[in-house]
């Protein structure tokens, strides 16, 4: 597997980062998680130990159904990191999940030239060793 090991790897999240570690651990089970405040109902994303709406500590982890809409996107065509340099052109987007949070992600399974604002997308996964990376693809049938 020497040739595989020599390929530049995707930068991975640090599992020691306390706010976001539970999110990344849940990806191993194929779950895209977000938080909701038990006190004020605010949707919190990225994950934190406090509510961004009221400062309270009681956050509930929930699992997203993984469906959303592209709010905006770009096609990356030049990159200084060897992994991404080998991946260009690729589409990155801010996706509005139906549960009310917005996340940066990659759009896969589509020609980057065909990606558009307002497009409906669904969760897919890319294996990356210790974790899985949530990516999105155009929803089947759309």
């Amino acid at each position, binding site marked *: 597997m020497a040739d595989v090991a020599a390929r530049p790897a995707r930068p991975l*999240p640090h599992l020691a980062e306390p706010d976001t570690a539970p999110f990344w651990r849940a990806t191993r089970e194929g779950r895209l998680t977000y938080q909701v405040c038990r006190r004020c109902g605010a949707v919190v994303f990225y994950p934190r130990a406090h509510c961004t709406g009221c400062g309270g500590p009681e956050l509930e982890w929930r699992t997203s159904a993984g469906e959303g809409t592209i*709010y*905006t996107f*770009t096609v990356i065509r030049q990159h200084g990191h060897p992994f991404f340099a080998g991946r260009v052109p690729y589409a*990155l987007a801010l996706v509005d999940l139906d549960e009310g949070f917005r996340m940066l992600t990659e759009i896969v399974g589509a020609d980057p030239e065909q990606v558009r604002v307002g497009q409906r997308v669904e969760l897919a996964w890319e294996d990356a060793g210790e974790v899985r990376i949530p990516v999105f693809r155009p929803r089947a049938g759309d």
Partner: protein
Amino acid sequence: MGRERRAAIAGVHEFGPRRAETMSALQIKALSAARALEDAGLTWADVDALYDAGETGPAAGLALAEYLGVRPTVVDTTAVGGSSFELHAAHAVRAIATGKARVALLTYGSTAHSERRAIGTGPRGNRGPASNMEAPYGLTLVGNYALVARRHMHQYGTTAAQLAEIAVTTRAHAMRNPDAVRGLHDLGHREVREITVEDVLASRLIADPLHLFDCCIISDGGGAVVIVAPEVTRDLRHRPVWILGAGEAVGYLEPGADLTVSAAARSGPIAFGEAGVRPEEIDVAMIYDSFTITVLTILEDLGFCAKGEGGAYVEGGRLRFDRPGAPALNTDGGGLSSNHPGMRGIFLLIEATRQLRGTSTAQVPGARLAVAHGNGGQLATHHVAGTIVLGRD
């Protein structure tokens, strides 16, 4: 003008070379400090407040005071990227107004070009929780701003040609600025000339919809600004450039938020309100031009035109220095065509000062009021806005 005069820019210096292979960033800061103090007619010993954005390394403020050999009794190390210097100016006014300082020194130095730092397309810094969520996707700095540009186009019908107008105007201004022209040559630009909308659209896409010419250049550089109390202005070598108003605000990614509105929509009204000035009175708009979309968004947010109308507003060279009826934009050539060593905010204050002294290379006749607006960080995901309104007697 019945506005309160609390502090003024008394001295400025822009480090001329865009390539400084044999110098350190600290050396650029020290040299610029000496020239700016000389420009003001003040000395090293007069400095009692020191501002440092930490671009030369850890222990900001501490390391710089020792290196320069000054003994400030006010130290401010606000570090929010490119807009740090607008925040420094805002804080210097407050320190002076409360009697804590008389002579404030702001400096900047960077050898980004010589170090070959790929600012726009390199990997981004790590690793708090926000960046721990973004790292696996490889969002470049250019891509970050491109997300805003794409949404602006979707929401308002803004076109790539309209964004290009901003790059065309700043290049026209750069061609009048000998330092900028020399810099473009020194940085290896093949054709140093005015450009057209077609040239911008024909340049390669870096991150859709932003082309190469929608992006700032990467240079070395630096500068310094000296801000003083009103009683100090009596002995100055130049007429004072008063800081009439200042505003600060933070923007970040929020669910449901409108990405086409930046923190300038909050910092602007604070600064204009304090100054008692309306945007339509402004003669010179020094707007942080990391990318063309940065300028378009901020022009709208500051109230030069309505949200969504920025595309039409910048068309037809309206913001060139020699067109009356609208402010002149980035008359030194801006980050797009003059210099961008990574954090450009200090140059906005320097060129606004030149305009209000009447010494710009693209001088607006009789310029009386200017705005300098810095944008630090990354426009789509987390940024800090600093607005400074300036005027002369």
